[in-house]
């Protein structure tokens, strides 16, 4: 018996939507962490009961929450039933301690990056945008943070340590904040190669590590961004999201600030596959769970107009890995719709037919249980949706 669990992060808390494999009726549980921004919630692929959540506030900072029972109960790692203090009496609440590694042994100096006015600005931690649990260990999780850096826990979120080779890359001084801040928002783990990690940063671009996160190289060849001084620069591109199919991890798809892109060589080079899209601006991109060449995007008009063309909410599907796209409209509002779908707010399940889910800034979460052919809202009035992840539970 398969069940589907959707993990929704919003501006005012987290919600868990559950259904059986038919995906017709849903229960809605939440809000969890009411009043807090929940940027991302994601479960471990090897232990579906283990879920991590990034709970954050401009006032009170970063909190990491962990559940061991599929989201029924939550704890801050190292709080709860565990000892709250060290034997010396010092607090142990370090699950939200994201400190850039400047140690001589493993870290890099606290370098600077380019600020909005062109001056150099030191890295300052703001929040965790994305949590990516390991593919084989429920206690290991990667965290993409703002200001852009990659952290990892290997103790279930009790402590976090920076993989400082990324922030310390020689291109770091040229990285620039996007409109939403300078965030590492996408982490993709290669299921066939434990040492290979992809990440994407706004606005620096895409990076790849082939040694488990120790060293990194920019992989942005072929990107063309008219909004930066050198449109083909090695870094500086505002990559919004990248995605792979687990059976074909050498093929990457990218939704860039403008342009939908594709790489067939693990990111070494990219080519545009926007084709007949009505707009190639957007945030999310997702790959069908059973068809590696079927991809989904949600076009919006532009960087100035973050809403769909013509007030019609349309998911576009390509069954050819890009270039040729078809609008998917059945069940989606086709008039007076001016919501956006953010970069982490689209996901697929692994049921058959494939389920596609996305959340909007208007608080709707839409589901399709038939590869995207038709859609229905699961909920309509949540706070603005920041992220959507799906667990397919056997």
């Amino acid at each position, binding site marked *: 018996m398969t069940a589907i669990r959707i993990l929704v992060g919003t501006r005012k808390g987290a919600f868990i939507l559950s259904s059986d494999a038919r995906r017709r009726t849903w229960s809605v549980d939440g809000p969890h962490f009411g009043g807090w921004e929940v940027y991302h919630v994601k479960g471990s692929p090897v232990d579906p009961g283990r879920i991590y959540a990034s709970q954050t506030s401009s*006032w009170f900072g970063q909190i990491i929450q962990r559940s061991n029972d599929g989201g029924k109960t939550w704890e801050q790692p190292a709080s709860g039933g565990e000892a709250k203090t060290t034997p010396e009496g010092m607090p142990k609440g370090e699950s939200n301690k994201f400190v850039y590694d400047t140690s001589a042994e493993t870290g890099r100096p606290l370098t600077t990056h380019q600020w909005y006015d062109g001056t150099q600005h030191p890295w300052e931690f703001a929040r965790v945008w994305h949590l990516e649990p390991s593919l084989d260990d429920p206690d290991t999780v990667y965290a993409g943070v703002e200001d852009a850096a990659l952290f990892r826990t290997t103790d279930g979120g009790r402590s976090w340590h920076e993989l400082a080779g990324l922030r310390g890359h020689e291109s770091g001084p040229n990285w620039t904040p996007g409109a939403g801040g300078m965030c590492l928002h996408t982490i993709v783990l290669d299921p066939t190669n434990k040492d290979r990690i992809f990440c994407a940063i706004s606005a620096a671009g895409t990076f790849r590590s082939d040694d488990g996160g120790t060293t990194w190289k920019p992989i942005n060849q072929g990107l063309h961004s008219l909004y930066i001084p050198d449109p083909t620069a090695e870094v500086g591109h505002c990559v919004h999201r990248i995605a792979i199919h687990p059976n074909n991890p050498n093929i990457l798809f990218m939704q860039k600030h403008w342009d939908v892109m594709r790489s067939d060589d693990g990111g070494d080079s990219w080519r545009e596959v926007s084709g007949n899209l009505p707009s190639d601006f957007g945030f999310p991109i997702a790959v069908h769970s059973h068809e590696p060449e079927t991809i989904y995007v949600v076009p919006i008009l532009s960087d100035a107009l973050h809403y769909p063309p013509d007030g019609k909410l349309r998911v576009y599907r390509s069954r050819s890995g890009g270039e040729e796209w078809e609008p998917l409209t059945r069940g989606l509002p086709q008039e007076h719709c001016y919501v956006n779908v953010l970069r982490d707010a689209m996901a697929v399940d692994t049921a058959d037919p494939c389920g596609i889910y996305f959340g909007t800034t208007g608080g709707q979460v839409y589901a399709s249980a038939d590869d995207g052919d038709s859609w229905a809202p699961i909920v309509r009035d949540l706070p603005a949706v920041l992220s959507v992840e799906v667990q397919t539970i056997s």
Partner: protein
Amino acid sequence: MIRVTLPHHLCVLAQVEGEVQLEIDGEVTQRTVLDALEARFPMLCGTVREHGTLRRRPRVRFFANLEDVSHESPDAPLPRVVAEGESPFMIVGAISGG
């Protein structure tokens, strides 16, 4: 006994309602109050003061005897009415944003 009031979000995190009462040996300052608070509620570490630097987070304010003491030295003695528990030390989320 020192009385401390927390903003709603931190009450939820710390799983407390209303005021928190803390015992402090020695001088009562912002630093000793916050040290005691974090020792008893380690889940609040990093939420009032930043990790590492222990600086007040920018959108958090401190009030003692209804006066804003956010910019006072963290080692300055707090007013007698706070030190003696007549008036709470108030940790407040700044009124800003949406």
